[in-house]
């Protein structure tokens, strides 16, 4: 079959037409020596992306029975998908088309109309050479499994499970400890003005237990996960019975939470287990059990010091919630025994939520001593501190309550290795974009929620869990199929030497090694076609579809050959 290339030059209203001589482009492309033996259809159009323009393009492809298509228009970021959509309505394979950017890369960056026109011709010419080397690619449709695996049954995991579980979607909720509820379950009370109370939390936990679509596995950890969005094969392992369970899920939500910094590891914090030094977590427990603080000797303390930012400097980030929960503890102490002397040692008061200020102000009215320190050290219950002003002071209290920094859970690193994810320098999970895509990971189908992505409080963990649930509900619609990326890498078996270089460089974990045949194989459903492996392959056995060497050479060669003719 002889090639018939359709070249459609878009005027983009006045955007291209005012700065590129579109008529000359059409005229010169028609006359190109290189394409003498090919049939060309060269036309201009006012606005190809308009409804009328798309209809025009569709008719042109059908009537002229084009084998290749060039749209000389705007950036592929804007309308590549629009024109692919048009191709899909016709018999032309969408990968036999190429968009040539003559707006952002010609019209708008070259003020001289002549030179801009020359460059547009050059670009279209090299696009034509490239498109002749393009191959038709076919999309595949894969069945999906809408079920979801959630790792960690803390508040984020519970919320995600409750939001996702439904008639058509099962949720597998796994928890490494023996009960669901996570760290929030241990709390005495939550800031009441935040609208979440322990009773609310209990209700959520009982809802999880009674929901028929949620399958809870306690004392269970993740053993292995293979697969991709819509089709994960998961192995679970019971930590007690060592029994393994195989399940299938379409997405994985990581909500494995956080741990606390060990304050005893600090040089200037010298205290032993017999001293009256407790962490905020232990203080919460005391309040939960008998609504008051008790010293080791069974008596109530008459003076309490609250110390913020323990380990703040060592971990290198603010844990966000400590200032507000220490204030909650101060409130609890005051409410139980107003005569107790409370000293609040803070470095920077971090009160980011709209409710926090109210608490701070009421505490100040209750004449609690807020002391801003520069440096602080502990020797049992005696505190040496340097005030912000530089004044060195020593004081002794009955009880010290510490707010240690939140640190990533140990399981975060295990999960990172198992699922080939990236970690931030602080050790928390790294999202693809902290602001624009905060609950996803670099692997499709794996999401993060709660304090495993950054220190956060309960309300934020719930928001993230709901965000994850929203993402999953739109990506995995029960009964619908997914279309994986088509422009993926492929390995030519005959040339693969089995050096495994590609396995190391693949950020998506899309390549696996076939031990029997001693070659690497690309899992097309995971591959995103970045071509990292192409650059790393010493034997040149990998090619990325739609960005093959020959296609790129043609584009480069043509652009340069024509470029030499510019004289000025």
């Amino acid at each position: 079959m002889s090639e018939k290339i359709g070249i459609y030059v878009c005027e983009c209203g006045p955007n291209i037409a005012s700065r590129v001589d579109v008529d000359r482009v059409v005229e010169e492309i028609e006359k190109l020596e290189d394409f003498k033996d090919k049939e060309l259809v060269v036309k201009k159009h006012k606005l190809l992306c308009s409804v009328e323009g798309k209809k025009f393009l569709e008719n042109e492809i059908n009537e002229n029975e084009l084998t290749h298509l060039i749209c000389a228009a705007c950036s592929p970021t804007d309308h590549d998908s629009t024109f692919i959509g048009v191709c899909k309505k016709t018999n032309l394979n969408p990968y036999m088309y190429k968009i040539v950017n003559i707006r952002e890369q010609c019209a708008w960056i070259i003020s001289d109309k002549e030179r801009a026109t020359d460059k547009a011709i050059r670009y279209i010419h090299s696009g034509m050479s490239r498109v002749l080397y393009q191959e038709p690619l076919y999309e595949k449709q894969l069945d999906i499994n809408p079920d979801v695996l959630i790792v960690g049954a803390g508040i984020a995991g519970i919320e995600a499970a409750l939001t996702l579980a439904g008639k058509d979607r099962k949720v597998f909720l796994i928890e490494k400890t023996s009960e669901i509820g996570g760290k929030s379950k241990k709390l005495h009370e939550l800031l009441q003005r935040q609208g979440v109370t322990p009773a609310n939390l209990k209700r959520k936990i009982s809802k999880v237990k009674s929901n028929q679509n949620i399958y809870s596995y306690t004392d269970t950890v993740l053993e292995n996960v293979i697969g991709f969005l819509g089709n994960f094969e998961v192995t679970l392992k019971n930590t007690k019975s060592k029994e393994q369970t195989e399940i299938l899920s379409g997405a994985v939500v990581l909500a494995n939470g956080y741990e606390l910094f060990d304050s005893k590891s600090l040089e200037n914090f010298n205290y032993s287990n017999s001293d009256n030094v407790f962490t905020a977590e232990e203080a919460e427990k005391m309040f939960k059990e008998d609504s008051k603080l008790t010293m080791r000797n069974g008596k109530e303390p008459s003076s309490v010091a609250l110390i913020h930012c323990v380990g703040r400097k060592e971990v290198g980030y603010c844990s966000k919630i400590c200032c507000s929960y220490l204030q909650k503890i101060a409130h609890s102490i005051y409410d139980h025994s107003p005569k107790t002397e409370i000293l609040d040692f803070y470095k920077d008061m971090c009160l980011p939520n709209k409710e926090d200020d109210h608490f701070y102000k009421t505490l100040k009215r209750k004449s609690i001593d807020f002391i801003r320190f520069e440096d602080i050290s502990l020797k049992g219950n005696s505190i040496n501190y340097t005030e912000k002003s530089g004044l060195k002071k020593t004081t002794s209290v009955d009880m010290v309550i510490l707010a240690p920094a939140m640190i990533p859970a140990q399981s975060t690193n295990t999960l990172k290795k198992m699922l080939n994810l990236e970690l931030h320098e602080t050790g928390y999970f790294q999202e693809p974009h902290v602001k624009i895509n905060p609950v996803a990971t670099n692997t499709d189908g794996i999401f993060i929620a709660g304090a495993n992505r950054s220190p956060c409080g309960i309300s934020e963990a719930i928001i993230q869990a709901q965000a994850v649930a929203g993402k999953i509900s739109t990506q995995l619609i029960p009964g619908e199929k997914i279309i994986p990326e088509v422009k993926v890498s492929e390995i030519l078996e005959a040339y693969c030497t089995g050096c495994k270089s590609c396995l190391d460089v693949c950020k998506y974990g899309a390549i696996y090694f076939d031990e029997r045949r001693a070659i690497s194989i690309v899992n097309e459903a995971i591959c995103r076609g970045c071509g990292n492996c192409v650059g790393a392959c010493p034997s040149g056995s990998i090619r990325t579809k739609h960005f093959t060497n020959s296609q790129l050479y043609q584009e480069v060669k043509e652009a340069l050959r024509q470029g030499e003719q510019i004289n000025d």
Partner: protein
Amino acid sequence: MCNKKFKPQIVGFLCNWCTYAAADLAGATKQEITPSLNVVRVMCTSRIDHNLLLNTFFSGSDGILVAG
């Protein structure tokens, strides 16, 4: 001697996600850029191997910009 001013031909391999987007932004803000830069979009600059670079030089390029 050639009297013509030397105009280097440069090929720019730009990453689809970052530098190509930046080049688009340069276009959208109407920055003046020399026509002797020929932009080739790739999905990721990690795809560029020595073969492609050498072939680009063999094709007559005076300089190559790999940005991503």
